[in-house]
């Protein structure tokens, strides 16, 4: 496949075009504060998307990640508040990752253990996780976060002041997105486990025949995605400075999937890149944030994202089919 017909190139082109239009409409659009806003908005979405990418590569799909993230963030906040309110943020993050991994293991047991389809299981747990939280754990908003999380939300990587006197900043949380990308890259491309994830996505039957422990790998994939979900959840709570069991993050599930699919990951499994996924996240964030800045009505967001998905995934598929037909 030539680089021209790759999703990455297409998405990068759309991002560039978007920036040009943005700059033409609003002279302040191409500025450091805009960039910082976008990076900040991409942290949680990015971490969740990287997790979903791994599931897609393994040949499955996960629609439960935002629900899992909300449960992890709320349970973690309650635990820290109740047991060790003075706990530092690193310990709190570990708790969130552990809660996320445990919930991911629930998905894993149904999918790898019982051999159920990933869409059905995660559709079930999407509702189950959150319902369980609201029914048995609590539905009160906690706006007074433990100290560790408050400290974390104030730690800035970059801080500056504009000519007009307004401030901009990028929280340290961004480093977590960078770390997650680096770790996932190493796992996928430098370990045999990662190669096995690709192999299973390519052909599960072939993987079985060659002796890959398919169920074990699938289970680990969902535990990993759960851990990333827990991390994304606690970062989301810290940055929003509130632990809300009814958090609107839940509505972001489709955006997460859209970003991964826009980035070129195939739903049939076996293919997908981190670069593509990050570009997909960038585009989604750009569309949802900038349209507001540029004064374009909110409802246009849905139209824009919908069109992007149809064009972004339809065009390469159509091109691939054309070249295939020419070869036949």
């Amino acid at each position, binding site marked *: 496949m030539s680089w021209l017909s790759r999703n990455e190139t297409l998405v990068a082109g759309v991002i560039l075009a978007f920036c040009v239009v943005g700059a033409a409409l609003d002279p302040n659009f191409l500025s450091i504060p805009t960039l910082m806003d976008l990076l900040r908005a991409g942290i949680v979405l990015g971490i969740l998307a990287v997790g979903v990418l791994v599931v897609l590569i393994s040949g499955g799909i996960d629609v439960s990640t935002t629900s899992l993230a909300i449960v992890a963030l709320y349970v973690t906040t309650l635990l820290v508040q109740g047991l060790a309110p003075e706990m530092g943020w690193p310990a709190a993050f570990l708790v969130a990752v552990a809660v996320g991994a445990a919930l991911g293991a629930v998905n894993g047991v149904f999918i790898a253990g019982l051999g159920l389809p990933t869409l059905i299981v995660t559709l079930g747990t999407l509702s189950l996780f959150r319902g369980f939280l609201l029914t048995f754990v609590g539905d009160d908003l906690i706006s007074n976060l433990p100290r560790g999380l408050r400290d974390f939300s104030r730690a800035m990587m970059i801080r500056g002041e504009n000519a007009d006197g307004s401030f901009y900043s990028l929280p340290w949380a961004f480093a977590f997105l960078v770390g997650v990308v680096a770790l996932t890259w190493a796992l996928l491309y430098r370990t*045999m486990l990662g190669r096995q994830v690709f192999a299973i996505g390519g052909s599960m*039957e*072939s993987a079985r025949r060659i002796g890959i422990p398919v169920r074990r790998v699938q289970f680990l994939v969902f535990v990993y995605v759960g851990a990333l979900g827990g991390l994304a959840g606690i970062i989301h709570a810290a940055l929003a400075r509130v632990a809300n069991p009814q958090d609107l993050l839940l509505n972001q599930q489709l955006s997460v999937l859209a970003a991964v699919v826009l980035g070129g990951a195939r739903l049939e499994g076996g293919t997908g890149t981190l670069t593509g996924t990050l570009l997909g996240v960038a585009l989604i964030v750009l569309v949802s944030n900038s349209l507001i800045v540029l004064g374009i009505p909110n409802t246009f967001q849905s139209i824009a994202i919908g069109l992007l998905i149809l064009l972004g995934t339809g065009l390469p598929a159509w091109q691939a089919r054309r070249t295939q037909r020419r070869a036949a």
Partner: protein
Amino acid sequence: MADDAPLVEMTGVTKTYAGITALDDVDFLIRPGEAVCLAGENGSGKSTLIKLLAGVEWPDRGVIALDGLAQAAMTPTTAAAAGIAVIFQDFSLFPNLSVAENIAFGAELAEGARFYRGRRVREIAKRTLERVGVLMDLSAPVETLPVAHKQLVAIGRALASNARLIVMDEPTTALTEREVRALLGIIRRLKADGVAVIFVSHKLAEVLEVSERVVVLRNGRVVAEGPASGFDARSLTRHMTGRDLAETGPAPLLAGAPVLLKVEGLSKAGAFHGVDFTLRGGEVLGISGLLGSGRTALAKALFGLVTPEAGRVVLDGRDVPLGDPLRAAEAGIGYVPEDRLTEGLFLTQSILRNVAVGRVASHARGPFLDLGGLAAEARDWLARLRVKAPDAEAPVRSLSGGNQQRVVLARWLARAPRVLVLNGPSVGVDVGSKAEIHAIIADLAAQGLGVIVISDDLPELLATCHRILVMVEGRIVEDIAGAEATEEGLARRLAS
């Protein structure tokens, strides 16, 4: 004489499944560097024997010895460790991964590597392909390769895992004549290297020349065994089916048979050019050519699946609309596709529905459908074509290859076509069913139908066709009377 010690020796092996004896007291032996043909029809026990070799199943009685040591039990892992590799018909590759990674995956897995070592993987792949004697782009994704190269990658993968015995299931079905030649060269190389090979196939004539021995299974028993030089296509068929299925060529064409179909100047850029031919009622016309010669595109063009840029197709003096399958069917042309599994059948639907689907419009009673009449007609055709099915309501998937082909034929015949185009009518069916399909073709022609058989299976063309057209690079270069054609002559012209 260490070299002559058997690699695998099975003695008195018996295996039953739910009361059905799949293998009955079978002895089987193979030595290093030896190639053995394992022949047999579907249900003869071939697959069971492979499963025992691969460690997937364990016999009820009998002894399996590897390198002279009787085994207490075998699992896929111990079989692989002993150097036994099975290459299934679908090759079991990873389409999304590179050639190099596909070749080295099993070896790296067996070593228990935790980290992916790209350089080492390429090194293994390069060395293995050198051993096979082929050059290939190591970083190309396997899904972009032609079938013949995928097979080489599968062979490479077996070798990279130190295979000493490679079992190949139907290795030649998807290959053209030229690719089969190339494969045989590679097999000779491997044998010289001490690798043993078992061919499991319906189409054995092609691999006889590189094999030392032939073992024929029928109903779970070894019915014939001996040096390959003692077998030919005909004796193999006789042993496999237990009857003599000598194919004598078609019955002579009636002298005054009228011209039924006339094709004039049919052209499509990049596929075929200026194709002219006629087909008479009751005639069986063969069209042969290598893959890429345009034979499939031409077949599809007759039925409107490919739109030609110039030329006409005339049936009974009336122009057949081009590029429209529905109207081609109405005009009286029927087409049975090459890949009956993916192109022609609704695999999960019932046999009856698969036959009846083409006749729905003819059984309409106003806005309603005469289901009874539809089913009765379908059942009649199933009976006339002798489809062996326990239940017409069973899904088509449950039938054997030959019977699936009959279901497709039944569907077309139910529409009463004048001309029937059969693309690769017996690809992937066993010898017995093949002979029966040839008999059906002869029957159809005797009823006055014009039949076009598209195939690169030369014996099949010789057995069924009155005339054979040879296509090279999109043009018809030869028009031979079936009675005058020989296999060698045809093969030479095809490759010209």
